[in-house]
C-alpha cells in the first residue's frame, strides 16, 4: 500500500474528525489518499443521505404495484399488461449554478442513465426548475443567464438523445438567485420480466466498463454538491462534468441490446462518485467483493492518478457484471455501436472493494463499510425556520377595475405566465407518444405496446412550504394527484426530490423533517408510495438558504391511448361546474391563508400567514368524482385550480386554440379578491355540455362534494359577475397576449 494520509487531508475532503476516526478504527491504519477520496464521496451527504436517511424511512414505499422501491437506480411500478415503468427524479442544482448549460445537460444525462440501467427505454423527461427573479436590478442579468443556459442544456441533451421533454415547471423567487434548482425527472418503460438490477453476483464473473473514456472532469462533484457555496465557488467550475448526448444515445442502444443477449447479470451507471460508487454499490448490494485494476480503465487524459480515476464523474459510462464465458457477446454489441467495453476486474468473495493500479493495491475497503456503514445522523431540529410574518397588511376590497388589473398582472407574472419560450425548445413529441404535452395540468404519454397511457405530474410549492413545510408538502402531494385526476388517471407511485438548506441548522433540519412527515401522511392517504428519489441539502450560498422546496413526480395510469381530456375550453355554451366548491371547508382565518398565494406575492407584494387549509378526505372525494366524470367522457375540459385561484384557472381555460370565453357568476360572502384569487385546494373547473351537466352533478353528489354551476362558456370574452353584479369584463385575446409573451419579454430585456 502506498503512502497514507493525515487527518488534515481528511478534513479538507469534507470528513469530520469523528468520521475520520471511524475510518482509521475500521482499517486499523490511516487510509491511502485513494481510500480517503473513496470514503469522502461515499459518505458525502449526496451519496449517503446521512442526514435524511433516518427520516426517509417514514415514507410509505410499498404497494401492490411497486416492483422495486427505493435503493436501486430507479423505482419500478407495474403498469399492467406485462409492462413496467421505471422513473426517478434527481437534482443537479450545484453544477447548474456554476455552469448552467453543462450542469443541466449532465443532470438530464444522469437521470436517463438511471432509467436505462434498469433495462427500461426512457420515454419521457420533465424538469422542475427554480431561478432568481429575472427582473431583479441586482441579480436579474445573472438569473436570465442561468435560465437560458439551463433550458438550452436540457433541450440539447434531451432532443439529441431522442427522449421527449413533456412537461415540468419553472418558478421564481429571491432565494434561488444564488442557488437555482434543476431537478430532472425521467420515466422509461419495459416488459416487467426484463428488469436489471445494480447488484454484482457470481464470484469470478467479469466486471466490464462500458461507454465513454474517463477524464478529469467532475472529480469530487458529489462532495461539492454536499457543501454550501461561497465566494470561491467560481473555482469549482472544473468540478462540473461535460455531457455528450450522442454518446449517451449510443450507450442506451448498446446497453439495451447487450441486456437482450442474456449475458448481463447486473449493471449500474457511473453517476455521482463515478467508478467508486458503482463498484462499491454493486458489490454491497450483491454481498460480494469487486476487484479492479485501473490500468484497464479507458482514459481520455494521460497521467491520471488512481485517486482521479476513481473519483472522476465523466459522463456516459456504465459498469456491468457479465456471465463468465459470454463476455464476447457483450463486446460485440458495444463494438457495433463504436463504444469502449473493457474487462476491468472481477467479482470476488471477500466483500471488499479492491482497487489496484498495475497490480499494486491502492485501496482496500469493505463495500458494506462504504455503503450501509456510512454515518447516520440524528441531526437536532427545532421548529421550522420561517421569515414571513403571520399577519399581512390591511387591504381594502378592490374595485372591479382593480380586480381586472390584478388578473392581468398575475398572468404576466413570471410564475404564472406561459412557459412556451422554454418548452418550445424541447422536442416534446419525439417517439410520437405525447398525447398531452407541456402546458397542461399533467403530461400524458401513450404506450403503443400496452394499450394504456401514463400520466405524469411534477410539482413543487416552496411558497407554501416556507410558511409551513408539513402542510405545504401535503398540499403538494394533493395537487400532483389532482393533476392526474383531471386527465382521468389513477396515481400509482411517486418520486421525490427534497431540496433544502443546511441540515446542520436546526431550523432547516426541522423544515426537512416536517416536510417528509407531511409527505408520508399524504402519500399514504392517496396511495402513492415513494419509489425513490433524491435529497439535495446544503442549498445555501453565503449562509442564506433556499426556500424549502420538496418536489414530487407522481405517475398515474389512464386506461386508453386516445387524446386525453384537456384543460382548455373547446366550445361556447357549455356549463361551468366548479367541482369541490367555491371555497370548500370555509375558514375564518382565510385572510391569513390568503397571504401564501400568488396574489399576495405579486399584487400586494408580500407573503405572510399560512398555506391554504387542506382536508385530505375531501380532496380524495373531489379527485374520485373528477376522475369518474372524466373517464365517463362527461366533461369537455377539466382544469385544476392552483396558483392564482379560480380567476387565473378560468382564464387559462380560455387560452385554447379557439380562445373560447367565459361568463363567471359566483355568490360569495367573502371579499371579491379572496373569492377570485384564493388558492384553496380540492377544486377543479370543468366545462360540460348542457346535457351532461346533470350526470356530472349526480356524480359529485354521490361523492359528497360541492359542485356549484359557476357560469358558462361564451365567445371570446371573460365576464366576471359577483353576487349578481358585473365586476369586470375583458377580451380573452388581450389577456392571452399578456400571458403568452411575458416570459419572452422578461428574457429579452437587456
Amino acid at each position, binding site marked *: 500500500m502506498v503512502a497514507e494520509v493525515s487527518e488534515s487531508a481528511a478534513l479538507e475532503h469534507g470528513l469530520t474528525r469523528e468520521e475520520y476516526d471511524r475510518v482509521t478504527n475500521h482499517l486499523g491504519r490511516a487510509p491511502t489518499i485513494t481510500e480517503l477520496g473513496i470514503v469522502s464521496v461515499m459518505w458525502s451527504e449526496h451519496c449517503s443521505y446521512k442526514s435524511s436517511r433516518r427520516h426517509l424511512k417514514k415514507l410509505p414505499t410499498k404497494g401492490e404495484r411497486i416492483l422495486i422501491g427505493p435503493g436501486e437506480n430507479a423505482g419500478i411500478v407495474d403498469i399492467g399488461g406485462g409492462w413496467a415503468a421505471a422513473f426517478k427524479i434527481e437534482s443537479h442544482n450545484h453544477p447548474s449554478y456554476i455552469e448552467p448549460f453543462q450542469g443541466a445537460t449532465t443532470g438530464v444525462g444522469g437521470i436517463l442513465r438511471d432509467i436505462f440501467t434498469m433495462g427500461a427505454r426512457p420515454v419521457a423527461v420533465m424538469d422542475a426548475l427554480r431561478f432568481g427573479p429575472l427582473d431583479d436590478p441586482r441579480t436579474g442579468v445573472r438569473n436570465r443567464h442561468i435560465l437560458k443556459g439551463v433550458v*438550452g442544456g436540457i*433541450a*440539447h441533451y434531451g*432532443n*439529441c*438523445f*431522442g427522449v421527449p421533454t413533456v412537461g415540468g415547471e419553472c418558478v421564481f423567487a429571491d432565494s434561488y438567485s444564488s442557488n437555482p434548482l434543476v431537478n430532472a425527472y425521467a420515466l422509461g418503460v419495459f416488459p416487467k420480466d426484463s428488469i436489471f438490477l445494480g447488484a454484482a453476483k457470481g464470484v469470478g464473473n467479469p466486471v466490464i466498463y462500458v461507454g465513454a473514456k474517463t477524464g478529469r472532469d467532475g472529480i469530487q462533484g458529489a462532495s461539492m454538491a454536499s457543501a454550501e457555496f461561497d465566494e470561491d465557488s467560481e473555482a469549482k467550475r472544473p468540478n462540473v462534468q461535460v455531457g*455528450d*448526448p*450522442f*454518446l449517451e*444515445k*449510443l450507450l442506451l442502444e448498446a446497453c439495451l441490446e447487450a441486456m437482450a443477449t442474456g449475458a448481463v447479470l447486473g449493471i449500474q451507471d457511473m453517476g455521482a462518485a463515478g467508478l467508486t460508487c458503482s463498484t462499491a454499490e454493486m458489490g454491497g448490494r450483491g454481498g460480494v467483493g469487486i476487484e479492479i485494476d485501473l490500468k484497464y480503465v479507458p482514459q481520455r487524459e494521460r497521467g491520471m492518478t488512481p485517486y482521479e480515476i476513481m473519483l472522476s464523474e465523466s459522463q456516459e459510462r456504465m459498469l456491468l457484471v457479465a456471465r463468465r464465458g459470454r463476455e464476447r457477446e457483450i463486446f460485440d454489441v458495444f463494438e457495433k*455501436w*463504436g463504444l469502449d467495453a473493457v474487462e476491468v476486474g472481477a467479482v470476488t468473495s471477500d466483500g471488499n472493494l479492491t482497487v489496484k493500479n498495475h497490480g499494486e493495491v491502492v485501496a482496500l475497503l469493505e463495500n458494506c463499510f462504504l455503503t450501509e456503514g456510512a454515518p447516520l445522523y440524528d441531526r437536532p431540529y427545532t421548529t421550522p425556520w420561517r421569515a414571513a410574518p403571520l399577519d399581512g397588511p390591511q387591504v381594502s376590497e378592490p374595485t372591479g377595475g382593480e380586480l381586472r388589473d390584478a388578473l392581468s398582472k398575475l398572468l404576466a407574472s413570471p410564475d404564472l405566465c406561459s412557459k412556451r419560450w422554454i*418548452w*418550445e*425548445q*424541447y*422536442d*416534446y*413529441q*419525439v*417517439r*410520437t407518444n*405525447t*398525447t398531452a404535452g407541456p402546458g397542461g395540468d399533467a403530461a400524458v404519454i*401513450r404506450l*403503443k405496446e400496452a394499450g394504456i397511457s401514463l400520466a405524469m405530474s411534477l410539482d413543487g410549492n416552496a411558497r407554501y412550504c416556507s410558511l409551513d413545510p408539513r402542510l405545504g408538502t401535503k398540499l403538494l402531494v394533493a395537487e400532483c394527484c389532482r393533476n392526474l385526476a383531471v386527465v382521468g388517471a389513477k396515481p400509482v407511485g411517486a418520486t421525490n426530490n427534497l431540496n433544502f438548506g443546511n441540515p446542520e441548522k436546526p431550523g432547516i433540519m426541522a423544515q426537512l423533517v416536517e416536510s417528509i412527515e407531511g409527505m408520508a401522511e399524504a402519500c399514504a392517504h392517496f396511495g402513492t408510495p415513494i419509489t425513490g428519489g433524491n435529497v439535495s441539502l446544503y442549498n445555501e450560498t453565503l449562509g442564506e438558504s433556499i426556500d424549502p422546496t420538496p418536489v414530487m413526480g407522481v405517475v398515474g395510469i389512464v386506461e386508453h*391511448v*386516445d*387524446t386525453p381530456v384537456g384543460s382548455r375550453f373547446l366550445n361556447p355554451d357549455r356549463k361551468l361546474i366548479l367541482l369541490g366548491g367555491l371555497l370548500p371547508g370555509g375558514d375564518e382565518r382565510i385572510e391569513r391563508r390568503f397571504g401564501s398565494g400568488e396574489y399576495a406575492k405579486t399584487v400586494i407584494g408580500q407573503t405572510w400567514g399560512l398555506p391554504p387549509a387542506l382536508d385530505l378526505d375531501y380532496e380524495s372525494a373531489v379527485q374520485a368524482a373528477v376522475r369518474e366524470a372524466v373517464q365517463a367522457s362527461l366533461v369537455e375540459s377539466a382544469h385544476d385550480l392552483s396558483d392564482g385561484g379560480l380567476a387565473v384557472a378560468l382564464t387559462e381555460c380560455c387560452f385554447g386554440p379557439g380562445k373560447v370565453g367565459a361568463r363567471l357568476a359566483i355568490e360569495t360572502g367573502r371579499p371579491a379578491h379572496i373569492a377570485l384569487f384564493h388558492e384553496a385546494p380540492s377544486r377543479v373547473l370543468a366545462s360540460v355540455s348542457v346535457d351532461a351537466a346533470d350526470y356530472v352533478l349526480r356524480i359529485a353528489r354521490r361523492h359528497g362534494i360541492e359542485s356549484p354551476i359557476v357560469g358558462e362558456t361564451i365567445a371570446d370574452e371573460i365576464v366576471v359577475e359577483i353576487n349578481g353584479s358585473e365586476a369586470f369584463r375583458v377580451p380573452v385575446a388581450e389577456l392571452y397576449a399578456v400571458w403568452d409573451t411575458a416570459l419572452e419579454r422578461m428574457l429579452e430585456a437587456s
Partner: protein
Amino acid sequence: MKFGVVIFPGSNCDHDAVYALSRNLSQEVVEIWHRSEDLCGVDIVFLPGGFSYGDYLRCGAIARFSPVMRLVKRFADSGGLVMGVCNGFQILLEAGLLPGALVRNRNLRFICKEVRLSVGTIDSPFTNRCNLEAALTVPIAHGEGCYFASDAVLDRLETEGRVAFRYAGENPNGSARSIAGILNEGRNVLGMMPHPERACDPAMGSTDGLAVFQSLVAAAVPVL
C-alpha cells in the same frame, strides 16, 4: 410498397417512421443499418430525423460518409424514391442529392411546434395526393432548419416547381422564401424539415402527414 428506414448512429425518429409507415399506413418496412451494403430491395428509402453523429461538424456532414449512403446515391441516381425528413434532409443536402444548405434557426434556438404548410406542387410522387389549396398541419422540431441557397438556385427551384412545401403564414426559422421542403431535378428525391411521420395518428392531433405517404403509395401503383 416496401419502405427502408435507414438508421444512423444518433437517428432518433427512426422508430416513429417505422410505426407510422407500418401501423398507420400498413406498409412493409425494413430497418437498414447505416453500414449496410444492401438496400434490401426497397421501393422507397426514408432517412429519418435525429442527430446522426451528434450533429458534430455540421448536421449530416458525417452521416453522408456512412457506407449505406453510396447505395442511396446510386438508388436515387437511377430514379429510386428517396425521402429525408429533418436530419434526413440535412444528410441529403450534405450528400449533394439536393441543392442548398440548412443553417441555424433565425432565433438561434431549437423550435418544436406545429406549423402550417402550403403545398407547392402536386406534380411529384411525394405530393400527388396533396391539395394545392389546403394547408397541412405538421410539426417541426429542429435547431438548424433555416433553408439557405443562392438566389439563382432559389429562382430555379421556383421556376421548375421544385418547392414541395412552404411555411404558410409564420416562417418559424427564417428559411429563404419560406421553403420547408424541396425536390431534386428528377423529382424523385424529397427533403423536408417538418415531420409528416409525426402527423399520421389521430391521437397525436393532426393526421395531415398521411397525405405525403399516401402520395408515395399511389405513385408506386402503375397508372393504367
